[in-house]
């Protein structure tokens, strides 16, 4: 099963990617090929097989409720493209 152009466009929106027309065509093609390939998984009967989401079989490590020093405001903002008054500054969503 391949994939149609509209779906690719929709997925790009979900992923916050802007594709040129050419990229859209290429991706539709490539994704189609790959999805057709992975379809082979349907050759397998997986009824009643538990999905594996973790391959390490230990009980999860929890931490105690203790406050540890984090970073300073300066460090938190150190890599930010734009800040103001200790806050991260971003453009607004137009329709709000």
């Amino acid at each position, binding site marked *: 099963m391949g994939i149609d152009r509209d779906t690719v466009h929709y997925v790009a929106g979900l992923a916050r990617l802007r594709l040129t027309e050419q990229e859209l065509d290429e991706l539709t093609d490539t994704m189609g090929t790959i999805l057709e390939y992975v379809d082979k998984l349907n050759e397998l009967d997986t009824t009643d097989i538990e999905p594996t989401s973790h391959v390490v079989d230990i009980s999860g490590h929890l931490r105690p409720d203790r406050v540890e020093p984090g970073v300073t405001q300066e460090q938190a903002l150190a890599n930010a493209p734009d800040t103001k008054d200790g806050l991260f500054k971003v453009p*607004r969503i137009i329709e709000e």
Partner: protein
Amino acid sequence: MSYETVIGLEIHAQLRSASKIFCSCSTEFGAEPNTHTCPVCLGMPGMLPVLNREVVSMALKAALATGCTIPPRSVFARKNYFYPDLPKGFQISQYDKPLAEFGSLTIDTGDGPKRIGITRIHLEDDAGKNIHGENDADRAFSFVDFNRTGVPLIEIVSEPDLTSPEQAAEYLREFRRLVRYLDICDGNMEEGSFRCDANISMRPAGQKEFGVKTELKNMNSFRNVQHALEYEIHRQVDILESGGRIVQETRLFNADTGTTASMRSKEEAHDYRYFPEPDLLPLDVDRAWIDSVKTEMPELPRDRQQRFQKELGIPPYDAGVLTSEKPIADYYEAVVKAGADPKAASNWVMSEVLREIASHDQLPGFNVTPKNLAAMIGMIDSGAITGKIAKTVFAEMAKTGDAPDKITEREGLSVIADTDALAEIADQVIAANPKQVEQYRAGKEKVFGFFVGQAMKATGGKADPKALREILLTKLRG
């Protein structure tokens, strides 16, 4: 055609652990922006969440208090979407395997108690704060503070069992009381530690299927929740009665206008693409953990309220006020345990005590110990001080923390019951007011109160009222 209201509520309660759910940053409210952060809650590259054990215990308390089933294993899941206050680009929540499910909360309605089903309770991390720019320079921008990112939340989803806005408000009040009793959340809607979204639909009376529901957001007080629902009922009924159809959408409540408006969804309805969080192993909650949490559970507020009525014989109104906050209920019960009559103690706590302390947070610094209050009530009972004087004694206890008998002695507030002393005062008052004496003897019985008042004043309120009345009566008639 008459319509039935169907309401379900989603509560998000911030758990008051010291550190965040997945990192060790402080959860304290009100700090300078971006000062309670670390690479983990900032969503920096390579960072990983590690679950806070105490947060789970707190959530378990909520689950136990609502009689939920707690499966031995629950799983965290990523809820993926983009927003500036969501640093990882996903929230860590729980999806098809939540911490707890199938519980309930009982509320009081005009028609008696009603059981509201709770579908599920699950854990998740809070997002940061997105502040929209105000002045001209900043209007095109948003400003983000990540202090709140990673503060632990429990989400409690109710069944659509609520059938009126009043019930919805009552459910919220009851839940808030509960989480404060459990000491897991401070229930502050204005500060955002206790939030609520509502789902509401209308259906023709008697119909089994639900109508189309709308989701309401942006209600930051119980009153606003009620108003929003009331408005929405009217809006939906109007549409239905004119033959229209309800659009399934999210609507924001505007507190200024009291109306709801459609949140023109800027993108597609969210496709959150939930999948199990690979960085967190499934959470195993065993019997031992549940049992240990059970030992930390207080008596639940509703149970306590009913016990006060049954065992202490105080009326429902009193029981409600006294159990509204656990520290107040604790205080009241301590006064009763120290020997005070439950109803008298109730009166004093509901009026004088609550007047002194604006909120239960001030109880620790409140100088009137339960023992002292009980002793004072005992002194009124035995006639050692008058009810009126007791108010003075109480005020002095609140100021100094001293015992009532010490204060009474020190300030000379003991009741004057000595008949000779009272007789003397009575004589003085009678002698000083011949006109009123004449009026009384002429048959104007109401004037008696004037003499009582004057005599009381002359004794500084300390005269034993019964003895004083007898003596005055005798002398005036005499």
